[in-house]
């Protein structure tokens, strides 16, 4: 049976258009990042990556991601368990609230944290009297990063756990499994790949967050400069090659994220084919 759009000419034109547009729009920028980073040779690239400020920015960025992931993981699993395994009033509301970080502009996200925890905010004033400063320091960067990345794990888990239903877990409970054992032995094996992908997405967004972090960081070189802020400074200082050296490191993380997603999807489709 012939399907819509199966005529060879239509096929060729549509595939051609999709490939050409994607190459121009998506692939070309990706190639340009690495071309710029290495445009003055590997030596210059290495010099740019290994200078003190860049290394500090890398360490800060990875450190923030390292703290963000477990926080988002605990929250994501708890929320997914709550909304897919129980029915209670306000369930839909919780699912809508979790989307807030996706809709809020990163700059606005940074601003609301600055207003509350900064010198003029009511929490900030109180903390200041104990000599604790959260804004323009790494805790502030961590806080806005958690805000921006918290939906990812929950968003990956909820559709999957909804589709799987709770029969296996109920069976385990009747067989006497309790709390933590139930989760570790029954639920976790079913959701581990979605969980892993959620973590990968959280990481990708955490290392790359710019708008929110630039509001609360103060971007002090060698202190509160994350990698995206560092590359912005280099770019504004007309050190394009240096900026793209840092950008290429972030692009590499993005590419690893895409590869991880593709391989997880391939694994899932292969498992489906067996069933």
């Amino acid at each position, binding site marked *: *049976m012939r*399907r*819509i759009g199966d005529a060879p000419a*239509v096929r060729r034109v*549509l*595939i051609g*258009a*999709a490939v050409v*547009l*994607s190459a121009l729009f*998506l*692939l*070309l*920028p990706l190639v*340009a*990042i690495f071309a*710029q980073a290495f445009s003055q040779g590997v030596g210059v690239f290495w010099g740019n990556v290994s200078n003190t400020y860049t290394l500090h920015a890398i360490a800060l960025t990875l450190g923030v991601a390292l703290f963000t992931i477990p926080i988002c993981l605990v*929250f994501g699993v*708890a*929320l997914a*368990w*709550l909304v897919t*395994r129980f*029915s*209670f009033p306000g369930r839909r509301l919780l699912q*809508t609230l979790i989307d*807030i970080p*996706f*809709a*809020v*502009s*990163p*700059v*606005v996200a940074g*601003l*609301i944290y600055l*207003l509350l925890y900064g010198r*003029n905010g*009511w929490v900030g004033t109180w903390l200041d009297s104990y000599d604790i400063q959260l804004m323009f320091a790494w805790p502030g960067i961590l806080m806005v990063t958690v805000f921006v990345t*918290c939906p990812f794990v929950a968003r990956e888990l909820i559709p999957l756990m909804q589709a799987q239903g*709770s*029969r296996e877990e109920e069976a385990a*409970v009747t067989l006497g499994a309790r*709390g933590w054992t*139930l989760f570790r032995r029954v639920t976790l094996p079913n959701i581990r790949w979605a969980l892993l992908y959620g973590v990968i997405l959280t990481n*990708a967004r955490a*290392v790359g*967050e*710019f*708008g929110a972090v*630039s509001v609360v960081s103060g971007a002090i070189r060698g202190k509160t400069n994350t990698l*995206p802020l560092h*590359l912005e400074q280099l770019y504004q200082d007309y050190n*394009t090659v240096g900026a*793209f050296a840092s*950008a290429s490191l*972030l*692009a590499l993380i*993005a590419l690893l994220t*895409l590869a991880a997603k593709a391989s997880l999807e391939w694994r899932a489709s292969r498992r489906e084919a067996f069933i």
Partner: protein
Amino acid sequence: MSLAALSTRRIAAGQKRVLPGFGLSMGISVLFISLVLLLPMTGLFGQLAELSLAEYWAIVTEGRVVASYMVTIGAAAVAAMVNAIFGLLLAWVLVRYEFPGKRLLDALMDLPFALPTAVAGITLATLYASSGWMGSILEPLGFQVAYTWVGIALAMAFTSIPFVVRTVQPVLEDMPNEVDEAAMSLGARDGVAFRRVIIPHLWPAIVTGTGLAFVRSLGEFGAIIFIAGNTPYETEITALMIFVKLQEYDYAGASAIASVVLFVSLTLLLAINIWQGRFIRRLHGGKG
């Protein structure tokens, strides 16, 4: 009704919860949402309370700020429209055809989400500047992209490509073969069948994806500021206006503009969620 659905329904109706962890997961979720998502909003309202209504109105309707709304909304609308068409094309090609490199193309679709926005920003600015690979081709032809309104729309379109593709793709995959067959056996031509049969089926997904792309574009910052040029009244986006006020330590001004942005994006998010809920209910025949 499936067995799984039956059992969840029974649990929902039953008095006692079979599975453990209700209290713990509710506690963690509510505490987290309150502390991370809701509490910070109070800072914004606190700041806004210090402004009189007249002062607030003066800030949010100032000429330069209004110009930034126009630039942001206009460019986001163009970007969303471009993405609706481009996204539909890509979803169609990825679902309906087999060709070498298809898996690679599919993986490439997620690049804008995976790539940090600041990286996208400096890359697009470099590519489309007059000395860049694209700029050096386009500018002699009379198309100036970098540091114009077009550049803003381009950056917005780049960061929001995956929304339409990834919402339309699963709906197209789940579309039964009979839909095509019925249309074709009745003798409809491809173009007519596509417009009359496929588009109505995909419409809810296209609207949802385009809506999400639009909301994302309204708030985008990192990808845009490098290519925008940031000329007052011409190429300043609203997110930048908030940033500029902050750098002048004008917290009240920043908050007032932010409240407008926040209100618009939360309203749109709610509208999309309600629309999506209705569409899912319709798909599942009134249940769900």
